[in-house]
């Protein structure tokens, strides 16, 4: 979900926006809110829905919505890749191939970037529409070191742009052992971010997410689902590629709902509920957003 902002000229001047600096994440005034929704049934995405097929409530108050063409709102995707030493070898090759498949699934106006992490977090390619830059960056992925997945996801969320359809795809194959941040802080940041989060956790028999769902797996799954995304658990390199392709494809099959919040307090947490009326299907959408005072 993203919320566009009206700035007063004075505020723009104070914030240094005119001099090329980025605007603050938290909006001074919400004009319209955008919610990305993915609708599926047992057979795949559901197409052809109209605005009247959706029911959206903001803090339990039903809102009047319209559908916006997804084509008019390019995606800004950040791939956040675990490059810890456990990725060495075939897994890293599979990850590169999966990223290529993901890039192939984006539209030309969409941006993509690559943020790699072991214990250290590094931009290998900042978001750009130039696919060559990202493909070259993929060749520089190198498996070494520990895993700071929470910190890396924080970085991707904190640096995600407002006003575009931000997509963060985190890939990790193991347990975090280096982050300074934990689940609590990450949840708070995810709630305050506009980004749609998908987490891909490679599962394999020799080094699985052990003993069912770990705390980390649960945290990532819940954060992804709360943003309207998913936690994916491919069990083989082939499935990994399919997961990344599906994530890219789903961005073109999502419904972008727009509304001007009515009857709700502007500041604070906005709990969202998106359902279908008169149509069948499962809706995945952000569960809320935050407007700072």
């Amino acid at each position, binding site marked *: 979900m993203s919320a566009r902002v009206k700035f007063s000229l004075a505020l723009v001047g104070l914030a240094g926006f005119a001099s090329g600096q980025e605007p603050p994440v938290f909006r001074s005034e919400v004009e319209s809110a955008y919610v990305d929704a993915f609708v599926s049934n047992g057979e795949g995405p559901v197409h052809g829905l109209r605005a009247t097929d959706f029911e959206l409530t903001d803090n339990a108050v039903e809102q009047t919505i319209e559908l916006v063409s997804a084509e008019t709102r390019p995606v800004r995707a950040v791939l956040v890749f675990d490059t810890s030493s456990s990725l060495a070898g075939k897994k890293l090759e599979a990850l590169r191939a999966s990223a290529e498949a993901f890039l192939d699934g984006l539209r030309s106006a969409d941006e993509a970037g690559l943020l790699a992490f072991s214990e*250290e977090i590094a*931009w290998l390619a900042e978001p750009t529409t130039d696919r060559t830059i990202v493909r070259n960056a993929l060749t520089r992925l190198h498996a070494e070191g*520990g895993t700071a997945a929470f910190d890396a996801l924080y970085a991707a969320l904190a640096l995600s742009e407002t006003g575009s359809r931000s997509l963060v795809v985190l890939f990790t194959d193991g347990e975090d052992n280096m982050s300074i941040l934990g689940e609590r802080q990450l949840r708070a940041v995810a709630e305050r971010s506009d980004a749609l989060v998908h987490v891909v956790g490679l599962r394999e028999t020799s080094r699985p997410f052990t003993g069912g769902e770990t705390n980390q797996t649960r945290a990532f799954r819940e954060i992804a689902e709360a943003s309207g995304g998913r936690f994916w658990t491919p069990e083989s390199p082939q499935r990994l590629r399919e997961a990344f392709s599906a994530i890219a494809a789903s961005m073109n099959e999502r419904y972008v709902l727009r509304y001007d919040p009515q009857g709700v307090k502007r500041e604070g947490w906005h709990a969202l509920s998106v359902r279908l009326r008169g149509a069948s299907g499962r809706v995945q959408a952000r569960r809320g957003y935050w407007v700072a005072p």
Partner: protein
Amino acid sequence: MALIPRARLLAIAAWSLLAPATSSGQVVSREYEELLRRYQRGQRSAAVWALGTWRESDLDLQIKALQRRAEAVARCPTCKDLLDDLPLKAAVMLHADRDEADRPPAAGTEQPRRCPAGQARRAGQIAAILAQRGGTLEFARRFFLAMAQRCQWDFCLEAALQWGRDGLAQFPRDPPLLMVVGASLEERATLENAPGDERRRRFQESEKFLSDAVAGDPTLLEAAVRLGHVQWRLGEDESARLTLEKAVAQDGTPPLLYLAHLFLGQVYERAGWPDQAIGEFSRALALDPQRQSAAVALSQAYFSTGDARSARRVLGEALAYAGRRSERDPHWDYVASNAAEAEDLLQDLREETGP
């Protein structure tokens, strides 16, 4: 080294078992003794290699013989001390080095390494003898500490705890030994995916050892930093605050002070005191602006106050250091940083094995 004929060994074993424990009745083979002396003379590699040709059961007989001699000496303080003739420090390090040689290096950062086994156990048995003797007490204490640290560094946490506890059995209030046990328990609780109750129990146990270490040596900053962090992990925020506020006021190395500020910042952050948290994270970062963990924590603290501009600036600066940091962030190695000196400590002990 020539292998001892099996028949002779059986005879030795049988005799050892039957013989009365007099000071003259303890048999350490000439071959074994010569091996120890080679190590003592500085021919360490050759001695370590030669030890590898011995059968496990033969070596256990030698250790048993040493233990019997020690028992005899203990029973008769006025008798000639037969252990004085043996280079026991060399024996400890010889077995420890053989153990290390038997373990291939880890394949990578997150890859497991085979844990110390039989040769290390024998080194520990000889160290336990040294721990009973006035002149070698300190050597034995440092050996138990070094082995506990080596095991912790290699993520052999069960073994680390065992070495630490064996050391504490000989030196019950020793702060560094208390700390290595506390730190190993903390590492286990942090990294192993145990159920919530089990994890909490490990943190509580860790807290107890670390608390005893701090009580035993209030200047041991690393123990205090760990204690504060464990208290925070346990949700004992007030205790954590008090412990870490004291820690940041102590003298210490920049990496330890960095961790103290970082962890105190976490306490403030969770308590809902963002300004104090920002202050501590900033102090941590001021110790070395290249540190990523402090930058990420500071960025998140700014973000939580709605100051996204500062959050992004700090984060952007941290990411710009990627690949060109002059030192690793101490937080990355925190779980086992107390054990980083293990090999240096063992090298010091090796140097003390000479005649």
